[in-house]
Structures are given as C-alpha cells and as structure tokens.
C-alpha cells in the first residue's frame, strides 16, 4: 500500500486489523468478519511507532508478548529463539532494548508481531528511518515470511520496498483507491523504461503519436517524457522524429520506470 502523507494508509491498515472500526463496508480477514476493537489472533500488526519495553532485553520483550499470545514453557522459548534467528537479532538478544539502533529495534518490533505465527502480517512503514543495510536485512526477513506463505500487507512511502516485495500494489490518494493491481502488470503498464529528452524552441509542438512502442508521452517545461515498452527498439524512432523537426537541444536519458513516477502522476499537485 502506498500513497502520499495523509492518504489513509495507516487508517486502512488499522481497520483491517480491527483496531479501528470501518466507517462503511466490511473487513474480512481469512474470510471472517473482523470485530472492531479487537485484533484477531490470526493477525500480526506492527504499527509505525516502535513499541518495545526499553528496560527489557530483546528476548524478554519477545517472551512477554509471546506469553500474552498464549505461548508458554519450552514452546515460548523455542519460538523466541526462532524469532531472534529469523530477524537476525541473536547478538542483541541479551541487551536492553534501550541500547538498540533504529534498525535493530524495528526488527525486534517486527519479530514481536510474528511470534505467534499469524497467517496475516500487517506492517506499517517498516523501513522508515532505516539505513540501507538495515533496510535490506528487514526486507529480506519479510521476503522469507512471504516465501513461507504468510500474507503480508505492507505500507511504505519507499516505493522501492514495494517493487522488491509486493505482489500487488494499492495506491491510495486522499482516502480513495487509485490503483490496485499486480505489481508486475503495473510495471509493465508503466513501460519498461522512461525516455527523457531536453527539447529546443518549439518543443511544445512535438508529437510522438504513431511511433510503435510509445505507451504514453508528455512535455513539461520543454522536457519530453515518454514511456516505452522497449527502449532499444523505440528510442531511435523517437530521436529520428525529433531530429527531423530540429527539436533536440540537450540531454537524452533512459531510466527504468518506478512506482514513484506513477504516484507523481496520480497525486494532484496544488
């Protein structure tokens, strides 16, 4: 799930979890309606704010929450160890959470959400404020859960996370669903590349209609942006047309497409 600030991602996640009541419609998780005010035990929810007991160690935090989820004895110990290993927390298990870096704290936060092995995991901005290395470790952990059959709903402003993890993407803008489709199809729809060309005078009159492989195009401030399916095949045709009209003035760039680009197109600018 992605969208600009205030688009309703966290609210929707809270409604899916059952923490907030749905103002209309109905939420079903694993086919069962969700009762507002309670989070089903089949759901693991990790909100944006990292919620740990700072004076407890990582293992103690896991143990407390695990116990409250109904685990006890050797089962609880084993599950806590499994979480420490899965989220690469072994080195920090015996240290107080107050000493953790942001990345380690967030991984423990995530581990707590998963200690009772929920079928559905809801993660709100899990990579927020993480350095690239910590982000990769966390994304890897989530990818493993996905690989093992856990359904994960993840919200992120970092679209690269979604491109890396998500099978489907939902784009929310001002509480409205703008896009909801499989990531692969969406990326295909966006094209496999974006061609940007700086145009000279008269550039606003450019016309790429009829060029095979051009999915869409626009000109803003004398910069042409075209989504193309196959840049190797389409780029020469574009450049040929522009050159014929003497419109090429400077930089020519070919970039891979991104969800960010999609978001920019969907969000109304004020």
């Amino acid at each position, binding site marked *: 799930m992605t969208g600009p600030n205030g688009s309703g991602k966290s609210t929707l996640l809270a409604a899916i979890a059952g923490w907030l009541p749905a103002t209309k419609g109905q939420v079903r998780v694993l086919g069962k309606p969700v009762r507002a005010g309670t989070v089903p035990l089949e759901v693991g929810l990790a909100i944006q704010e990292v919620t740990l*007991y700072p004076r407890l160690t990582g293992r103690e935090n896991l143990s407390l929450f695990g*116990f409250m989820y109904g685990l006890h004895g050797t089962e609880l110990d084993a599950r806590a160890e499994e979480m420490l290993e899965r989220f690469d927390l072994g080195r920090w298990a015996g240290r107080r959470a107050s000493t953790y870096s942001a990345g380690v704290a967030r991984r423990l936060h995530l581990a707590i959400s998963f200690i009772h092995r929920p079928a559905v995991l809801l993660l709100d901005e899990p990579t927020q404020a993480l350095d690239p290395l910590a982000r990769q470790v966390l994304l890897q952990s989530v990818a493993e859960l996905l690989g093992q059959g856990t359904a994960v709903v993840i919200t992120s402003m970092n679209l690269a996370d979604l491109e890396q993890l998500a099978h489907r993407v939902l784009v929310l803008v001002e509480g409205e669903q703008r896009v909801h489709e499989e990531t692969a199809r969406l990326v295909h729809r966006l094209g496999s590349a974006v061609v940007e060309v700086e145009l000279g005078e008269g550039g606003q009159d450019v016309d790429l209609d009829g060029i095979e492989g051009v999915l869409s195009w626009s000109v803003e401030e004398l910069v042409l942006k075209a989504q193309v399916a196959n840049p190797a095949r389409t780029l020469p045709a574009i450049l040929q047309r522009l050159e014929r009209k003497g419109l090429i003035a400077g930089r020519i760039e070919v970039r891979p497409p991104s969800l960010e680009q999609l978001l920019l197109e969907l969000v109304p600018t004020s």
Partner: protein
Amino acid sequence: MTPLARIARLFEHETRLILTNPRLLLAIVGLPLVLTLLANLTFSPQAAAPDRLGVSDQDSTTLSKKVASQLLAWKGLTTLSLAAAENPQGYANAHPDVVVVVLPKGLEASVLQGSAVSLQTFVNRRGSRQDALATTAISNAGVEISAVATAVAAARLRAARARTSEDAAATTAERDALTKFQIGRTRNQTTLVGAAQPATTLTPQAQFATVTALSLLELVALLLAFSMASEHENSRLRRLLWTRLSLPEVIVARALAAWVWIMLALAIVLVISIAAGMSAGPNVPLLVVISMVVGLALSGYTVLIMGVGYAARQIFQAVGAILTVGVGAVGGSLLPGASLPGFVAGIGRVTPNLWASQAYRAVLVQGDTGGALWTPLGVLVLMALLEALVGALLIRRALRQV
C-alpha cells in the same frame, strides 16, 4: 492460558519495570523514609522543659539583693542572673525559654517610703509557654515586697504619731521585715503534674492518621501512575491488548502492582512512626486491615491518574500533581480539616484522605476496635472501585484513537 496466569505475568512484569527503574525505586522507598523521619522530628513528642528565670537586679540594694537571691534559689527552676548592663528585653527576645524579671532601680527607696514598685517581666511569645514556675516565683516576690512596704508604711505612721524619726522607724521596719522575707514561705505554689506536653498539639498517632500516611502515600501513588503511563506507553499497552490480554486484566494487574508498592511505602511509614514513639493501638491486626484497605483505595487512585495519563498525555503530570495536592488539602491531610470552610469540608468527603484518616483515628486515637470502622472502610473500598473504573474508561477511550 487462564486470565489469572496473564494477570500474574503482567503483575510480575510491572513489578519488574519498577525494580529496574532506580529513580522510581528511590522515590518510592526514599520518600516515605525521609519524610516520615522529618515529620517525626518536627512533631517530636519530646517534653518541653520549664522556662528558665532570668533576674536583672538594677537596684543592687539590700532589698533587691534579697529578692534576687531568693528568686535565683527557687526550687525546680533553672535560673540565671543578668548583668546590670544587660538589656532585659533584648535578652528575653534572644532567649525564648527565659522569663526575665527586672528589679527596678529605686525599688528599696520606694519601699522605704512605704510603697511597693511593680516588677517588670519579659516573656517571649516564641517560647513554649512553660512559664508557670517562673511567674509564680515572680508573683510571690511581688507580694513579699508589698508586705515589706506595708510594714514600712505602718512604722512611718507610728513614728509620725509618736513624733519620732520616721526614716529611722522605716529603716528598722524594713530590716525587721527582711529578716522574715521569704518568697517561698506562704505564697502561691505551682507544682507541675502529668506527662510533659509535646511541642505541637499533634500526638504521634494523630499525626500518622492525618498527615504522614496519606499525603505520602498519595505521592507514591502519583509516581507509580506517572511511571505506568509513561512516554510511548499508549502504543505499548495497545500492542499488549492485541494479544489475548484484556483491558480489565491489565487494570487488575497494574492495580495489584501499585498496591504492593504502596503497602511497602506504608510499612516504612508505620515502622518509623512506631519506632519514633507512636502506639500501634489496641488492635494491631485491625491496623493492618485498615492499612490494606487504604492501600486499595490508593491503588484505585493510581489507576485513575494513569487513566488521565493515557487520555491527556500533554497535561497529565500537571493535572496529577494538582489533583493530588488538592485532594490532600481538601481531605484534611495538608490543612487542618476543622479549619476548612463548610463547603470545602463537604468536598473532602469524596476524597480517600478523609475516610482513611477517620479509620486510622478511630483505631489509633480513640482505640476503637469495631463498629465505627466499617463505614470508612466500606467507603474506601467503593472509592477504589470507582476510581479504577473511571481510570479504565479513560484508558479505553484513549486507546481507541489512532
């Protein structure tokens, strides 16, 4: 996994959080320790000694020396002689335990004329007013001086009638009178009886029942509430409630943890007070029961303040502190209940302080062992439940917001 097991686990967790918080631990244990010791020193039941008597002889004559020597030898009084140059008023002002009497210049001359002169006395208002012995001695000295003056006046009258020397008769009469001069002879006598009074009007029992226990324990309750509803706690508690744990279980576990720590603080207060001379009353088990119920009421108060903490994080420390001081003042723990205006005293009836104070006074001061206790104890239990309920509702409301 039963609710009881979850409550026990959360109770252990909450207790542990307090144990791993040195500042809070220090406050919970140190506050009752230091303040009870201070309160017991302030309201010390140590006997106030009788005031000393200072004699300033500014006449330095046969008569004045006689008076001074007898005052200085007054039985049961610690006395001292002031130098003639010493300012008697200044001395009394500087020494609150000294009553200063002045034998004024011209005392003997006046007596030889047949009239007595008043003795001037200085008593410091800051003194403990243990001046009965000193004022009796001074009063008796005044009466004896008057007797000498009367004898001299009579001798002068006789001499005048006999047309002999009045002055010679006066001198002789004075000398005769002085041979019998004895200020402790037949005059007023004061004997101090009974136990010595403490410096304040509060007995240790009343002090414990009214001031020390309640105001201290409310501070401890406040600190516990601050700790339990600390920064980021909304999110942590919300997350705990996404497990099998329910809000009532959380409330019970936390109230129980608060109760244990409040009981520890109360035990410290009790032990120090008893060691400092407070009587535990005629029924110690009853004192323990009252303390347990008072602890319960304060646990409810902890949950209430905690509820304010979740519902209004920005202002809750200020609200909690104001509420606690206000409850202490209106409930008669910080200000004397009897001196409060009627409507304020009425408000005091909805504070645990007033009822806890009533229960403690009944058993500690009045020696009650039965009937009079049930009403305050019942009210305290109801208050505990009501406060916990309001606190729980506030928490529930706060946790429903994103």
